[in-house]
């Protein structure tokens, strides 16, 4: 696979995304809301000292899991434009007629969905951690972040969830014809991740590096499985003759 060919496709997609306000708003607004709203809702709504430091650190540590969900949510927005957009504009055939392999096209388009999603997720995560530290250092007497949980969540689980969502977008794109449907179907991928977040919030599931590594392992296995399915879906002939 020639990375240069894939990168040309990625850069073209970035050019298209720049014109889509919905994508820009999603990339900026969602991480910003989560990064500000979550810590603020806990730290600022409770009266000082009302939450014991150990509970506060546990609550805020768990909140960071939402960035795994975010990493899976954003590609469903962008991926829909990346793949269905080509379908709607009927630009896949001329693209497939170029001397580019299926895997180069798939990789280029996947990268176009992955990079901004992960960039926004990481930026949101860093802002979240900075805000939490700023708001709780006095109360806790130490900086809660960065810690091992944050490292595993942002550097391992979130990228794996993001890849999973991109792959799912490819599969969804082969079956639907409009961007809204693709986004709705694509967002189904976040449900199991929301469940993990909810279990963590209710303390039914301990959010620690060990459990987060298990979640990452499961995501990795799912990534590998969906990789083969998405590769089988994104075949030149399949796209031209069977994509609905």
């Amino acid at each position, binding site marked *: 696979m020639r990375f240069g060919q894939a990168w040309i496709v990625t850069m*073209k997609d970035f050019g298209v995304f720049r*014109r889509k306000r919905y994508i820009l708003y999603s990339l900026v607004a969602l991480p910003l809301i989560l990064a500000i709203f979550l810590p603020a809702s806990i730290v600022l709504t409770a009266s000082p000292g009302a939450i014991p430091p150990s509970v506060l650190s546990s609550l805020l540590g768990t909140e960071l899991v939402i960035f795994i969900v975010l990493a899976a949510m954003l590609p469903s927005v962008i991926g829909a434009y990346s793949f269905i957009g080509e379908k709607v504009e009927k630009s896949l055939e001329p693209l497939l007629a170029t001397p580019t392999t299926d895997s180069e096209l798939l990789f280029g388009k996947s990268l176009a969905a992955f990079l901004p999603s992960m960039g926004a997720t990481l930026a949101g995560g860093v802002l979240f951690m900075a805000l939490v530290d700023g708001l709780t250092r006095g109360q806790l007497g130490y900086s809660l972040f960065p810690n091992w949980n944050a490292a595993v969540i942002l550097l391992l689980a979130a990228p794996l969830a993001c890849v999973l969502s991109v792959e799912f977008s490819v599969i969804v794109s082969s079956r639907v014809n409009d961007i809204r449907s693709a986004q709705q179907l694509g967002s189904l991928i976040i449900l199991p991740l929301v469940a993990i977040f909810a279990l963590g919030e209710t303390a039914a599931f301990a959010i620690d590096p060990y459990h987060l590594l298990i979640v990452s392992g499961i995501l990795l296995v799912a990534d590998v499985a969906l990789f083969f399915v998405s590769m089988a879906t994104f075949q030149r002939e399949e796209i*031209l003759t069977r994509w609905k």
Partner: protein
Amino acid sequence: MIEAQDLTKKFGNTTAVQGLNLNVREGEVFGFLGPNGAGKTTTVRMLCCLISKTSGDATVGGLRIGRREDQLKIRQMVGVLPENVGLYEDLTAYRNLDFYGQLYRCPPQQRRERIERLLRMLGLWERRGDLVGTYSKGMKQKVAIARSLVHDPQILFLDEPTANLDPESAKTVRDFIFELKKEKRTIFLNTHNLDEAQRVCDRIGILKTSLITVGSPEELRSSLWGRKTVIHLSSVSDAVLSAVRDLGVRNVEKVGDTRLIVDVGDPDRENPALVRAVVKAGGEVRFVTELRPTLEDIYLRLLKSGGSPA
């Protein structure tokens, strides 16, 4: 330049193209005619290595479409204008072309020069910075044609290049095809437009799942229609009719009271005798013309009869 031997494509139980044998010469404009669903687009897609063949084989520029290692080379060598323009409406015309130029690995300087040349030729240079979404249908079609040429291919596949265009835009596109023809490019033209095929193509193939016939417009006319002489008279009497029949012509048809249509093998040789016989039988000849069938006549006749594969 393009050769197909027994090329066949099946989708499940449906045969889209059956046993296609074809030879398109270098520098030739080859027209592919056929009704909807005849297999024209499927043929182009096979020849451009977009879809696989079921059986048979074909070569494009000496490279085999069925060979994996040749497929990228074929796609690099050919330019394709699909039926749908498929441009990125949120990008400018220049960016659209530049993107494809990059994918075809054209060096930056050469890419810039080619894009400028093509957009100037098509009258779009001044609007190169506008989003394609703001263009008219005709302008988009021109950009799509420029896209198929951005890497300077010697072989072009044009699928319905003037479909849905207004007459003025269609003429611009047709004129551009003439320019390409002058540059000695090999052009494979799928079209529904018989008038266009007649004007632009050196040879024409008529397809209906299998190839019904192939030849130049003139060859198709003479081989499938023959040559016909029309004699316009004051009135066609029985004596005139029998005088013509007595000459042993293949077929004579009385049309109305004033016209005779006569099948002739060689008008130069047979027409003088024909006119002499008509005059001798008391016919008053007003004028004599040749009945030239349009490509549409031939096309419809072939499709109606089912034709026999070439």
